[in-house]
């Protein structure tokens, strides 16, 4: 009995380790490549750990002028990556904020008052059901007409609209889990419906909102299609900037691309680390008899 359970536990751990290796390998490869000199980017057999680690790739992103004399990278992007990082930060953060705010309000209405009717949540979800490429061109036309092309407002608007259905669905499922009677108790014991929401419902779904925000933030941060098509080059996000690193002689500049990829992953991981204590289940345990 003891023997077999130990064996079972070891097998479980092996499976977990295998799955982690599989999942983490691309990240390892990206980080590793970001420190490789150009000779090691795409050689065969592959170089796993950079033999001559260099910060050249990061320098190419953040201060390309410093590389002007070295010529080790045939590099055409004059702009530093600071601006795209800042753009992405502004756009993703605002779009996430609006998406979660409106998502919470809509989800509350749908969950508690059946706003829009029984089929409304499904209807909302159809926004996500056709490929964004189908609307990219019509949106580009509308955006030019409205002078939204290449503006923060334009991208924030597009990102909010396209992530809102997911926000509504995620948040709705959390609100559905909270027994209506808890809010009603707050009302019977002296609060208006709105104050009952703030004093009781909101604290209970706060963790869920943070989780939703992280999910939406990742979507926004890594969005490429709209960032490319709706900006007309006037506004560059991180994802678009990654695609800018190529040259006539060397082709794709994997080093700087990997470096920018690494840099742009850090905020998301940092954000995830900050909120992990909110990611707990069983929000309403103890509130009601089961």
């Amino acid at each position: 009995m003891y023997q077999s359970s130990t064996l079972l536990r070891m097998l479980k751990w092996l499976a977990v380790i295998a799955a982690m290796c599989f999942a983490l390998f691309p990240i390892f490869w990206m980080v590793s490549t970001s420190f490789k000199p150009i000779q090691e980017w795409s050689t065969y057999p592959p170089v796993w750990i950079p033999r001559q680690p260099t910060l050249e790739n990061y320098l190419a992103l953040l201060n390309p002028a410093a590389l002007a004399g070295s010529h080790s990278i045939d590099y055409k992007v004059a702009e530093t990556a600071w601006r795209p990082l800042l753009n992405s930060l502004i756009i993703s953060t605002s779009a996430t904020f609006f998406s979660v705010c409106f998502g919470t309000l809509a989800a509350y209405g749908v969950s508690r008052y059946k706003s829009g009717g029984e089929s409304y949540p499904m209807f909302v979800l159809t926004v996500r059901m056709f490929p964004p490429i189908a609307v990219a061109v019509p949106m580009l036309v509308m955006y030019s007409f409205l002078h939204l092309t290449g503006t923060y407002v334009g991208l924030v608007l597009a990102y909010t609209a396209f992530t809102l259905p997911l926000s509504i669905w995620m948040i709705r499922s959390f609100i559905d889990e909270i027994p209506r009677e808890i809010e009603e108790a707050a009302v019977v014991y002296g609060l208006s419906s709105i104050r009952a929401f703030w004093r009781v419902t909101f604290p209970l779904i706060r963790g869920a909102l943070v989780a939703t925000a992280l999910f939406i933030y990742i979507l926004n941060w890594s969005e490429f299609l709209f960032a490319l098509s709706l900006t007309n080059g006037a506004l560059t996000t991180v994802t678009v900037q990654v695609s800018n690193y190529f040259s006539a002689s060397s082709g794709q500049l994997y080093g700087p691309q990997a470096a920018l990829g690494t840099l742009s992953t850090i905020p998301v991981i940092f954000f995830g680390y900050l909120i992990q204590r909110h990611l707990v289940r069983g929000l309403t345990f103890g509130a009601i008899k089961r």
Partner: protein
Amino acid sequence: MSSTGTLRVEGLTKRFGRTVAIADVSFQVGDGELFTVVGPTNAGKTTTLRTIAGLETPDGGTVFINDRPMNAVHSSRRKVSLMFQNLALFPHLSGFENIAFPLRNARMRREEIQRRVEEIADLLRIGHLLDRLPRTYSGGEQQRVALARALAPTSEVLLLDEPLSNLDAHIRTSLRAELKRLHREFGRTIVYVTHDQVEAMSLSDRIAVLREGRMQQIGTPEEIYERPANRFVATFIGSPPINFVPAAVVEDAGGVWLTNAWLKLRAPAHLAPALRQHPRDSVLVAVRPEDITVTPLATGDRVGDLTVYAVEPLGAKTIVDVKTPDGNIKAIVRRSWEGRPNMPVTVGVDERRIHVLREGDEEFLPSGPDRAAPVQTTSAG
């Protein structure tokens, strides 16, 4: 220390889509009265409470608290406490904050809140729960904290929805006694909802019986038990349930009789006029198990149609199932009753305490105000 109030409900009707949850429900609860609404599942008990609390908008009728119409008054201003069936404690707040919640909203002073919460906690013996979150409570503890939250504010009417459900039998009985004591001490006006007729009988000043949203009868526990308005109330209240025995109405020089193959009862005086109008009708005689006596036949007696089907000793009393040609009936006999299955018996019925309804009817035949008319007990075997 607590205010009380009167509650009046007039013609309350609530529909959910096509389902009628309650239809034309009216009752009045006096100051300090413990009024129980009892009924089976889907009787509309919870809907009634929720409508009184203002959580549901009635489709018809009016709720009055202290004679003020409440229909246009928001739930938060009705001065009612509602203990939800699923309790609905605030899971993110400590026991103290749960109980203090209504008090803070009533803008009570801080020291006063502290004093009031501690007082209530003492009363319900939950002092050790005040600093803890609800998720650490046992079922009975959750129940006490929810009750404390309902008792804490100076509500005019307390609404308790199945406050003792889902507890094991032992805790239920002790909490029931405690509730009764609390009510006696503070004289709060309480509307108590339960599906458990024993709870209703043991706690209430008066009982209302609801069935499928309609009021069946309102009265003291004694009235409901002794003079049920109809077949449903007679069956629902009482354990084991009342027996229904088919019989025919026969009139002769000796009076009006209710007879069948194994029973012959003289109709009590107050029922005789009503029965006389319908001779030879088939009727059902309703008789409580405790009004039936069962006597084993001595060997040598004529063997009749009645035998013991089963004997259920319950400690304080014994229930005997008697097999008759018209199905089994249940009788309560003394605990030392000697009898075994298949033993032939005779059955006696206390005629003063029977109820009669015509077959197919729901309502019992009109009964006079004086039901205790002395009539001798007869038996047949």
